């Protein structure tokens, strides 16, 4: 194998190539200015947004998120956060497609319970089926169950995004072995979505072989979101390179780094 230190390995989702493997959300920032700067510092090219009712009669001059995070510059990934049924998730995706002028890449998440925000797998499967039939390109948030991940891939989801830990928990990758099993079976990009708390969590996800990481709170809730955005950019690149480089085997006992030959004793 030739030894390259510059790896050209774009992330390809639904036929489009991205240089960055870090995907970021736009929630929980202090204001739109901070959102914009944090996203720039993260280097992300795919940015998630939520779809919500417009505030009627409230300050029409209020800046709009999409004026700051321009769909011309970023791939906007509308999510279905807050949806607890397949029907609501499908409605939200259709509104998002209209809102974004026919853009059909969506992040599907159907939640089961407010306390854990765990995915409701049966509703997720049902929504994915409807959306795929309707021409959507679905990046799907799911549990770290390898069988469910495979099912979602077989249905035609363009990326499968298992959680590392509950949304907004910052607990890291709680079950790396499940993520590894999902990766072994997968032919579509697998991204860890949710659970990352700090840079090393993102690196671990990438070292496992994940194709990318999606996060929001880990950056937005850091004391210095801009610095954390940069840290996450580096962490994802770092983990990717380490994965491609291939780690040394683990051994129980020591193995000297300096040669034994030529010792003066």
């Amino acid at each position: 194998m030739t030894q390259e230190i510059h790896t050209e390995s774009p992330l390809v989702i639904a036929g489009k190539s991205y240089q960055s493997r870090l995907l970021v959300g736009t929630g929980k920032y202090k204001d739109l200015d901070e959102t914009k700067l944090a996203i720039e510092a993260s280097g992300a090219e795919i940015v998630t947004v939520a779809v919500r009712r417009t505030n009627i009669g409230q300050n029409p001059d209020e800046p709009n998120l999409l004026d700051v995070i321009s769909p011309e510059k970023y791939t906007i990934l509308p999510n279905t956060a807050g949806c607890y049924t397949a029907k609501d998730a499908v409605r939200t995706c259709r509104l998002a497609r209209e809102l974004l002028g026919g853009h059909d890449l969506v992040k599907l998440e159907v939640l089961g319970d407010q306390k854990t925000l765990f995915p409701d797998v049966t509703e997720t499967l049902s929504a994915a089926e409807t959306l795929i039939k309707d021409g959507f390109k679905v990046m799907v948030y799911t549990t770290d169950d390898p069988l469910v991940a495979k099912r979602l891939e077989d249905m035609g989801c363009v990326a499968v995004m298992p959680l590392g830990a509950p949304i907004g928990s910052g607990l890291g990758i709680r079950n790396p072995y499940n993520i590894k099993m999902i990766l072994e079976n997968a032919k579509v990009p697998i991204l860890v979505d949710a659970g990352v708390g700090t840079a090393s969590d993102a690196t671990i996800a990438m070292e496992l072989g994940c194709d990318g990481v999606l996060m929001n709170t880990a950056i937005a809730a850091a004391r210095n979101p801009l610095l954390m955005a940069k840290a996450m950019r580096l962490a994802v690149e770092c983990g990717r390179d380490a994965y491609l480089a291939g780690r040394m085997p683990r051994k129980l006992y020591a193995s000297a780094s300096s040669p034994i030959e030529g010792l003066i004793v």
Partner: protein
Amino acid sequence: MIEINLNGEAFEVAGDASLSTLIQGLDLEGKRYAIEVNEDIISRSEHGTYFLKAGDQVEVVQAIGGG
């Protein structure tokens, strides 16, 4: 005037109001939004010719920060 339900609240519009009229009244012209009436998406090109009826359930949505 007729009463519709707009984003979950009762809202009065003129009896001959189209979706375009509604959007103008809300100062949303030129903004990025999407509209659903009675759970059906009404595409932008149809807003001028889609006339509201009493009791219509109208949702006007936009993109906001989210993960």
